[in-house]
């Protein structure tokens, strides 16, 4: 076994341990963030170096080192980098546990990287738990009433979702006798179609898997935790949850459903239809409930439910597609990348603004265009990207994923999605209107630290790059999705 392929994960773990220990000895706590970031950079560099190579899976075939895994590792490392950059101000106000904060962020990232790479049901489950438990603690980090309530809700509902997921895995293991995704696929494909049709155990297992993963990606009807948790959690963690945790869920779904249940065709048509239905419900419910929200974190919470709906359009397209058509998969990957930049940018702007205002109410953003023109401009760009208007990344992402859906006969779903995009413009643009046309409550400027500005700048560059010259990123997404072509 080639342990060199495991260096990114080992680096993160070592850095997490170093951060915890350093926290005990040093007075200057800002070094903790810098050590964490240097760890992420090292891990990222090693990961990039692996891109494009064809390496054998390690740990007895349980950990794939393919382009798909590397794409997601890069995504998670990048998001963690932005989260830590945008946390520095926030965390420096804590009197205790600064090291634990960064260490938990790193461990959650490690869990997500493993989620994207593992090809075994048991390892997937444990990686998912590693991510979840780190996030439960991070959500409750403020320890005030709202944060504690959010953490408790997330923990309880997350435990139920884990139980459902585990039940699904147990049924699939019981039916096939395998936990390795590739072996499960072999067993399923070797059975005659009639036996499969007469086996509700396998189908129920798949449905329970959808429910368990649906919680992670916050799809309706598994979304009840989203608004309260998003509102109560520290804002950088809310950003982390809305972007990385969702991306990790999609990574696992893509790998599990394609590697294990991609064939026979009627099976993938069936789960494709499940995802199509969930996509339609998620988009509609998320967008409609987002309209009356007064708190911007809650609004973005519901908006993230709607975005999960658009992403599931790609999953549905993948289920409907024939084997050599990977538009759906690569569409999901590209959408996740553009969504990561967009939503991180929006949340970073919110962090900067709420540092000054101590409020997350949309009405308090009134006149922000005059008080903090650059922040307001960045937030506007991100909101436009969330609607899916050019020249932002969101436009290309939606265009790509809807194109994949239409090519695979899901015109009805795309019509619903487009109507939803129009509805969503209403509440996104309301924030823009309040910021630029509203009267400012005071003429005081809104200051922001260098780290926040750097993070926001990176996000805006990402949003514009993916929106204006998407070719390179689309190529990367296609290369990563190529592992799904037979």
């Amino acid at each position, binding site marked *: 076994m080639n342990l060199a392929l495991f260096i990114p994960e080992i680096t993160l773990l070592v850095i997490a341990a170093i951060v915890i220990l350093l926290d005990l000895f040093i007075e200057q706590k800002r070094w903790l963030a810098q050590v964490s970031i240097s760890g992420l950079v090292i891990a990222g560099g090693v990961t990039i170096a692996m891109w494009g190579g064809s390496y054998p899976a390690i740990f*007895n075939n349980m950990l794939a080192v393919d382009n798909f895994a590397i794409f997601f590792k890069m995504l998670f490392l990048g998001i963690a980098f932005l989260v830590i950059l945008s946390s520095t101000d926030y965390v420096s106000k804590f009197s205790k*546990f600064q090291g634990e904060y960064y260490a938990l962020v790193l461990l959650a990232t490690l869990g997500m990287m493993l989620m994207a790479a*593992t090809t075994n049901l048991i390892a997937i489950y444990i990686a998912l738990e590693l991510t979840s438990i780190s996030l*439960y*603690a991070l959500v409750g980090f403020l320890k005030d009433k709202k944060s504690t309530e959010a953490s408790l809700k997330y923990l309880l509902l997350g435990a139920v979702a884990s139980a459902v997921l585990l039940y699904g895995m147990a049924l699939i293991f019981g*039916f096939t006798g395998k936990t390795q995704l590739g072996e499960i696929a072999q067993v399923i494909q070797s059975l005659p179609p009639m036996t499969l049709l007469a086996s509700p155990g396998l189908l129920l297992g798949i449905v329970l898997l959808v429910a368990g993963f649906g919680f992670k990606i916050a799809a309706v009807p598994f979304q009840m935790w989203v608004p309260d948790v998003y509102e109560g959690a520290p804002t950088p963690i809310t950003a982390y949850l809305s972007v990385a945790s969702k991306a990790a869920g999609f990574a696992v779904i893509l790998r599990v459903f394609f590697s294990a249940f991609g064939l026979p065709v009627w099976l993938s048509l069936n789960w494709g239809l499940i995802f199509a239905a969930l996509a339609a419900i998620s988009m509609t419910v998320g967008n409609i409930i987002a309209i009356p929200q007064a708190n911007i974190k809650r609004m973005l919470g519901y908006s993230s439910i709607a975005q999960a709906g658009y992403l599931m359009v790609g999953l549905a397209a993948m289920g409907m597609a024939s084997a050599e058509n990977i538009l759906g998969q690569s569409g999901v990957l590209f959408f996740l990348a553009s969504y990561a930049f967009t939503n991180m940018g929006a949340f970073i702007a919110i962090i900067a603004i709420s540092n000054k205002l101590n409020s997350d109410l949309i009405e308090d953003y009134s006149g922000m265009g005059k008080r903090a023109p650059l922040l307001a401009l960045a937030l506007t760009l991100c909101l436009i990207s969330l609607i899916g208007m050019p020249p932002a990344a969101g436009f290309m992402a939606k265009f790509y994923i809807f194109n994949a859906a239409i090519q695979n006969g899901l015109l009805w779903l795309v019509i619903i999605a487009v109507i939803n995009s129009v509805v969503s413009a209403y509440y996104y643009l309301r924030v823009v209107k309040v910021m630029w046309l509203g009267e400012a409550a005071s003429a005081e400027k809104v200051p922001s630290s260098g780290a926040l500005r750097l993070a926001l700048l990176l996000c805006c560059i990402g949003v514009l790059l993916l929106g204006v010259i998407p070719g390179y990123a689309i190529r990367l997404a296609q290369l990563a999705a190529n592992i799904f072509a037979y």
Partner: protein
Amino acid sequence: MGMVVSFWILAAVGIIAALGVVLLRNVFRAALSLILCFLIVAGLYVTLSADFLAAVQILVYVGAISVLIILAIMMTREVAQGSPNSRFQIPAFIVAILFLEVLVLTLINTPWPVSSMPPTAPTTAALANSLFGEGGYLLSVEIAAVLLLSAILGAVVLAREK
């Protein structure tokens, strides 16, 4: 034959104990019922020739977890009042029954593959091999260690004062 009889006895008592956990008003009695349920599950493992798993079940669940639960209850006031009524009782009941029906129908109607091999006994060495040996689940064991680290960190942060 003896196995079959003991399985059905354990199953019946297990269901009664599980119902007790949900239905008993007094939280302390519910906790005791839960411990009984854990014990029954350990018994079921024995009937399935999973001796190591049964021992672990007794050590961890019947031993450690139940002590933890009872300690937590001791620190709670108004134990006897139990859980208040909830307006979701009836909908939850209906959903639970529906889910039960789906599960039972599924389990009955699926042609589960049954191994004809005799069970391994004792299982401890075989388990150790499949966890740590060649071709085993070493990765999962390693991640579980990190998982514990993360859980400890989380517990320390949440439990200690700000």
